[in-house]
């Protein structure tokens, strides 16, 4: 006997909650982006656990696609952050509020 689906889902839920709190709390765009990755990883952990305990490959294949999309997303997101830094010379979100005024 070993930890069941419950334990894995709780760990995934905690990881997601921590990532979400990080997105709300932090002001540095790069750390916000890392916390988004943390939330994606939490969802992959839940998918693999469900896939394993229900004996189906679908969840694991979905994780494959999630990793692909996350890699593409990181490349584009970091390029946007670099372009933003070139114009504004800042990566803090509270200084990037030009659309607000």
């Amino acid at each position, binding site marked *: 006997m070993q930890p069941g689906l419950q334990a894995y*889902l709780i*760990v995934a839920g905690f990881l997601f909650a921590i990532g979400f709190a990080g997105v709300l709390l932090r002001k540095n765009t790069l750390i916000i982006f890392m*916390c988004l990755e943390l939330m994606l990883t939490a969802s992959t952990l839940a998918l693999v656990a469900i896939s394993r305990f229900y004996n189906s490959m679908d969840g694991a294949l979905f994780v494959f696609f999630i990793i692909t999309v996350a890699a593409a997303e990181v490349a584009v997101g970091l390029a946007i952050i670099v372009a933003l830094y070139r114009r504004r010379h800042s990566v803090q979100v509270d200084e990037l509020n030009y659309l607000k005024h």
Partner: protein
Amino acid sequence: MPAFFFYFFSALTILAALLVVLNRDAVNSAMCMIVALAGVAALFVLLQAYFLAVLQIVVYAGAVMVLFLFIIMLLDPKGRRVPVSEMNLVFGLIALLALALGAFWLARQYPAVAELPAIPQLPTDDAPLGYATAAKTFGYGLFTRYLLPFEVAGLLLLIAMVGVIVLSKRTPPDSNDDPAK
């Protein structure tokens, strides 16, 4: 014994994830993020998803985090401090508690301890998309039921590559229609 490894690696992962959020320095955050991703890869190994564990280490903890560290060191050398406002702190903690409690409540309906279902190394003929440990299993899935998403993922990577090149091209300063200036 698997129980011990599970508790060890989940504690490590959650601790490292907390440090990602709490660390003041962005470089330290990225280092903790690598530890958290490696911890998730270890949990994948416990779930016998060996291929995904390797993928997690190579793609996430390797390529993606190297890109992150590169950009952090390029842009944010001193890591200027911005204090967190009271309201943000309260809302952030409320969101953390609500999501954690919600996950706890939802996960309660599943068994706390279980015997993992026995799985073959390669998929069998009567269950071609059943869970199996070999990396070949992914090939069977990707080229049968998930062929279209697989092609779309390839196209997405191409679009991302072209998009990054376009985004990081330096724009000439005179064509700059910057409203802040």
